[in-house]
């Protein structure tokens, strides 16, 4: 990328390991445990087709006789044993969790990416331009902040569905959901980036670029953006946990993903119907997975915020 990157490339890994951030990670038990848990879940989700005992959404692999098998017990009819039991249709709960986490994580990452891109762009412009544009964008942000974001996501989701022909609704549901969650969450990024941009743009290195007449877009992208990314990463990490929960909430309420594309939220909605008839595992394990995922990502975000804060070092 750069003409001045040193030739001794192999040292990059060594340097990363030696960096203050890596050290802080290695010496923080909370960060380590959260990191391991989050990595395991993400790996499990990504590799679901490879490690899941079977694809729970392929009707060909399902046997209704396997339904309602409790965890670690042989099924009364088929004698099959499932670690985490099966649900009413005989789907292996462990497999549904892997596939569900896959959907949840995809929606979470995509929503965060969407919110981040939108928020960073608007924040950079507002902070750099200032004036009426800044005022307008920030008032919009203020207004949006007065609504609970889940309500906003519901609203956006509902309106968007109204515009989509019925035939495409199922296929488009996941994208609509991503946009809905992303749109309800850009404000934080925009505010933080705007504030940081206003600080950075007055620093002398930006003035030095302006003295030689560098183009404003170049100043924004090459000078300011890299220097405002620290806090953005923190928000993005915590935002990922929130997006996953938002998706689960919407799916739980039945307005999110269709049962053909279940996420952890959908699984929890299905499972809650069986809680009082004794089949607790159908609800408990997906819930535990969601909790572990959201909590570990959130704790990682907290750690990152502290680790990047020079005053707490």
């Amino acid at each position, binding site marked *: 990328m750069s*003409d*001045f990157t040193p030739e001794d490339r192999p040292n990059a890994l060594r340097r990363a390991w030696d960096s203050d951030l890596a050290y802080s990670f290695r010496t923080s038990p909370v960060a380590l445990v959260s990191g391991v848990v989050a990595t395991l879940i993400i790996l499990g989700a990504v590799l679901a087709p490879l490690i899941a005992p079977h694809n729970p959404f392929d009707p060909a692999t399902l046997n209704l006789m396997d339904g309602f098998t409790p965890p670690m017990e042989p099924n009364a009819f088929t004698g099959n044993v499932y670690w985490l039991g099966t649900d009413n249709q005989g789907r292996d709960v462990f497999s549904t969790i892997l596939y569900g986490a896959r959907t949840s994580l995809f929606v979470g990452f995509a929503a965060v990416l969407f919110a981040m891109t939108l928020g960073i762009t608007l924040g950079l412009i507002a902070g750099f331009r200032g004036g009426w544009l800044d005022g307008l964008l920030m008032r919009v942000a203020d207004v949006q902040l007065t609504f609970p974001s889940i309500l906003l996501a519901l609203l956006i989701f509902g309106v968007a569905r109204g515009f989509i022909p019925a035939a495409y609704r199922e296929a488009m549901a996941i994208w609509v959901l991503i946009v809905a969650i992303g749109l309800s969450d850009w404000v934080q990024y925009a505010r933080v980036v705007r504030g940081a941009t206003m600080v950075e743009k007055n620093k*002398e*290195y930006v*003035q030095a670029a*302006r*003295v*030689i007449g*560098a183009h404003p877009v170049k100043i924004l992208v090459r*000078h300011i953006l890299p220097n405002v990314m620290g806090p953005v990463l923190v928000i993005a990490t915590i935002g990922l946990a929130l997006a996953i929960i938002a998706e689960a909430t919407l799916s739980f309420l039945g307005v999110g993903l269709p049962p053909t594309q279940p996420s952890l939220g959908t699984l929890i909605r299905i499972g809650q119907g069986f809680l009082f008839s004794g089949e607790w595992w159908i609800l408990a394990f997906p819930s535990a997975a969601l909790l572990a995922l959201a909590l570990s990502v959130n704790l990682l975000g907290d750690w990152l915020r502290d680790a990047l804060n020079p005053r707490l070092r």
Partner: protein
Amino acid sequence: MSDALVRIEGLSRTFDVSKPWLNRVIEREPKAFLTAVADVSFEIRRGETFALVGESGSGKSTIAKMIVGLLAPSGGRIVFDGQPMTGTDGAAMRKLRKRFQMIFQDPFASLNPRWRVGEIIAEPIRTFGLASGAEVRREVARLLEVVGLGARDAAKFPHEFSGGQRQRIAIARALSSRPEFIVCDEPTSALDVSVQAQILNLMRDLQDEFGLTYLFISHDLSVVRHMAGRIGVLYLGRLAEVAEAKRLFTDPRHPYSRMLLDAVPDLAMTGRRRKQVEGEIPNPIDPPSGCAFHPRCPLVADRCRREVPRAVPSGDGMTACFAVEEGRG
């Protein structure tokens, strides 16, 4: 006439420091303006070091920013080598920009912490399209050596350097577009004295080597004494006196120049007392009437409270003071 590279003519700048519109309406306050620079004129000759000295609120940094185009003047104009800079745009401005550069006060803020030193120094070269490819690398290596660093330092990041070394990097960046004129805004005030000496010496050597013209901004009279050929003394946005350095230090005319000189601590003054200086700098939002210095001036007369003194040429410079004008000084 003399060979002026930069001519400043009646330069002014006011800042709107009003509260937001809604607060003003509710609190029934009028708009508030701060006059940072008022009707300042001087010229910088080719090859010389012209210094602007003043305390906080004197407007010296505002003038520097207007000259390099970081701030638009509210009035007056800046003429660079016969070409007015105000109102010039596009290609003509680009050509002009190539000919001047700036060195900033804080070497910790003036280098982008995420860029390698080589990239930082190469930015002006690339922006002005002065070289490309391996040529850029060679040029950066050469510049690093010119300022007393090594070619290998190009691959490092700014945080790997001390304050003095960073200021050398900033100087290398300023030199990279081969400018004729460099505005130096307090280039050593963030550095320790022993490092300051290195940087000042380097700047003098570079001036001799490349025939540079400096505008040197500082609050430190001893540093200015060491660097400048001619000096402008600013007080609350106005020029009080412009004089050749030697004359200013031996025979300051404006009462503020005298006061400033008396206030400088000097190593030779062990145990001796500086002359007591009365009062402090007034609030620039609400400056005194007439001559802004009159509340602190030992030579104050009625006229000073009413009228703003004009610049009266004296020798190679000028003085803006009624007392000097009327021979009371």
